[in-house]
């Protein structure tokens, strides 16, 4: 093997199949790389011993002819998925010592398909953030650096998962996407990430942020790697009443590279004020690539695009304030003693949560409180319905939508916006599809003038992840993006 770390997931599966390397060898290489890249702080908890045990078991299964979809592949798990016996922090102080006694459905499925767990990856606290800087366990950095040499954000909330794949300290990772938490970090770290349709992957055992928006997905080096891993994660789960009972197609088989006659929508409202020229150029390049492959580029309009972020910042905090009510110092997590029960609650939560989480709980509580519920929360739910309808109308004319993933390349950790609203604007292109529950993928398509990765986003119709992957595969082939 030249260098085991350079293999894509698809290549690694084939090398394992051909006995060119064992899962133990592959896993050892990744453990060494976890060591070598520890300064990026991509992992909150490393589990090398578990990884080696799982790798040995995988090699034994393979020798016995029992081969799963992810057999022997070392992966990182976003520290939002409960893992039985392994601490799950959600990036929060309040869950610092939380060791789940059960396994999330998604990780159960991945492990039953042979995946090997390297550790739990860093994230914004309770997945609330776009830079990984709200994590209690410290900033995470992207392995990409511009000429200034300053550490760049990997994006968020799944920053550690994206950084690990880019830095080759995991072959692939899980993520979750509530408003862009897979697609934005994928763009910033020069890798590929997919958020499937809401309901495709079970949320059971995933620490909840905003339940009507949260959706597990994954990161990989290539579009095909995303297809393989999503295949292993997706599917109906009776334990999640919002998961969809619908057959999961063979995603890999849907990547044909043939998009002749496909109609790709270009929403004019995504040309936002102040968008850098290089983003505009990349987007145009993406259109040209698709047109060259035989697709028809169609101008479309999604007039409520600029209302998506305000809608999101009512609905997501409202749901978060309700979901996070469970952290009360009684059943699990941190407890800070107080004068009485109410005081114990307030102290536990006041000391256990970070500033961004507190802000969102406060906003959520406010918009749900008597006298404001209709003006804020119900209004946002109405506008959300209108945003969904706009997408569904547009999908009568087009098969998929192409947009930039982010309005800029990754910012430096030092110059990150301190004003919450400025930080929220990072997700301007990813939030609309989240509100509509649509599948979306970001792939690296070029470099900024500073030499940092820029992503393009492909959005699809509900449950058409295969179409999204296929369109993305055409862009990937044309872009020829050089990975780290």
């Amino acid at each position, binding site marked *: 093997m030249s260098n085991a770390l350079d293999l894509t997931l698809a290549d690694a599966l084939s090398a394992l199949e051909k006995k060119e390397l064992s899962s133990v060898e592959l896993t050892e290489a990744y453990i060494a790389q976890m060591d070598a890249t520890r300064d990026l702080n991509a992992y909150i908890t490393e589990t090398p011993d578990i990884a080696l045990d799982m790798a040995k078991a995988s090699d034994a299964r393979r020798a016995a002819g029992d081969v799963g979809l992810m057999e022997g592949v070392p992966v990182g798990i976003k520290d939002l998925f409960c893992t039985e016996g392994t601490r799950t922090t959600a990036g929060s102080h309040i869950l610092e*010592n939380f*060791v*789940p*006694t059960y396994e999330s459905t998604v990780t159960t499925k991945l492990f039953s398909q042979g995946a090997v767990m390297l550790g739990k990856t860093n994230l914004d606290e309770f997945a609330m953030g776009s830079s990984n800087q709200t994590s209690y366990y410290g900033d995470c950095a992207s392995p990409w650096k511009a000429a200034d040499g300053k550490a760049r954000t990997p994006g968020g909330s799944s920053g550690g998962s994206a950084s690990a794949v880019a830095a080759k300290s995991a072959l692939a990772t899980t993520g979750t996407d509530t408003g862009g938490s897979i697609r934005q970090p994928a763009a910033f770290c020069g890798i590929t990430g997919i958020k499937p349709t*809401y*309901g495709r992957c079970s949320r059971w055992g995933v620490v909840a942020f905003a339940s*009507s928006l949260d959706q597990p997905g994954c990161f990989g080096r290539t579009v095909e790697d995303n297809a393989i891993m999503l295949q292993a994660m997706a599917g109906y789960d*009776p334990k999640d*009443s*919002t998961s*969809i009972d619908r057959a999961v197609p063979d995603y890999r088989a849907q990547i044909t590279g043939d998009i002749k006659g496909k109609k790709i929508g270009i929403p004019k409202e995504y040309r936002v004020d102040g968008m850098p020229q290089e983003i505009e150029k990349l987007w145009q390049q993406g259109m040209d690539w698709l047109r060259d492959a035989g697709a028809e580029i169609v101008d479309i309009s999604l007039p409520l695009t600029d*209302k998506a*972020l*305000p*809608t999101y*910042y*009512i609905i997501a905090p409202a749901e978060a*304030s309700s979901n996070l*009510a469970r952290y*009360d*110092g*009684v*059943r*699990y997590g*941190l*407890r800070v*003693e*107080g004068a*009485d*029960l*109410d005081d*114990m*609650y*307030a*102290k536990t*939560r*006041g000391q256990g*949560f970070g500033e961004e989480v*507190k*802000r969102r*709980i*406060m*906003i959520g*509580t*406010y918009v749900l*409180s008597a006298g404001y519920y209709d003006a*804020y929360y*119900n*209004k*946002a*739910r*109405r*506008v*959300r*319905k*209108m945003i969904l309808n706009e997408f569904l109308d547009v999908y009568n004319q087009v098969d998929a939508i192409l947009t930039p993933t982010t309005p800029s390349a990754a910012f430096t950790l030092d110059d990150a916006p301190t*004003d*919450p*609203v400025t930080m*929220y604007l990072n997700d301007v292109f990813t939030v609309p599809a989240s509100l509509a529950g649509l599948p979306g993928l970001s792939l690296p398509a070029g470099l900024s003038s500073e030499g940092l990765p820029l992503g393009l986003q492909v959005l699809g119709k509900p449950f058409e992840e295969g179409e999204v992957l296929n369109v993305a595969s055409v862009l990937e082939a044309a872009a020829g993006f050089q990975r780290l």
Partner: protein
Amino acid sequence: MAIDRDTVTRVAFLSRLEIEDAQKDAMTHDLSNILTFVEALNDVDASGVEPMTSVVEAYAPLREDQVNDGGYPDKVLANAPDRVQDFYAVPKVVE
């Protein structure tokens, strides 16, 4: 919409969040900015639109009314900060 310190104090109580006095001005400022930002929705005429509950065609799945899980108090209580026998323990709530 700008909110004031008293509102922050009231919402913090509803949220059961202890916010130190020194933090309240910053919180008031940030929350006011966020609320001003989301008021962009005032420009949208959404009358006659049903508030959305789910992006998926949600239905309540039915199953047989049978006990199919449970019976492991030690697992349930494994992460409890305080327990007495098979119960969670909390500070005294009844005088």
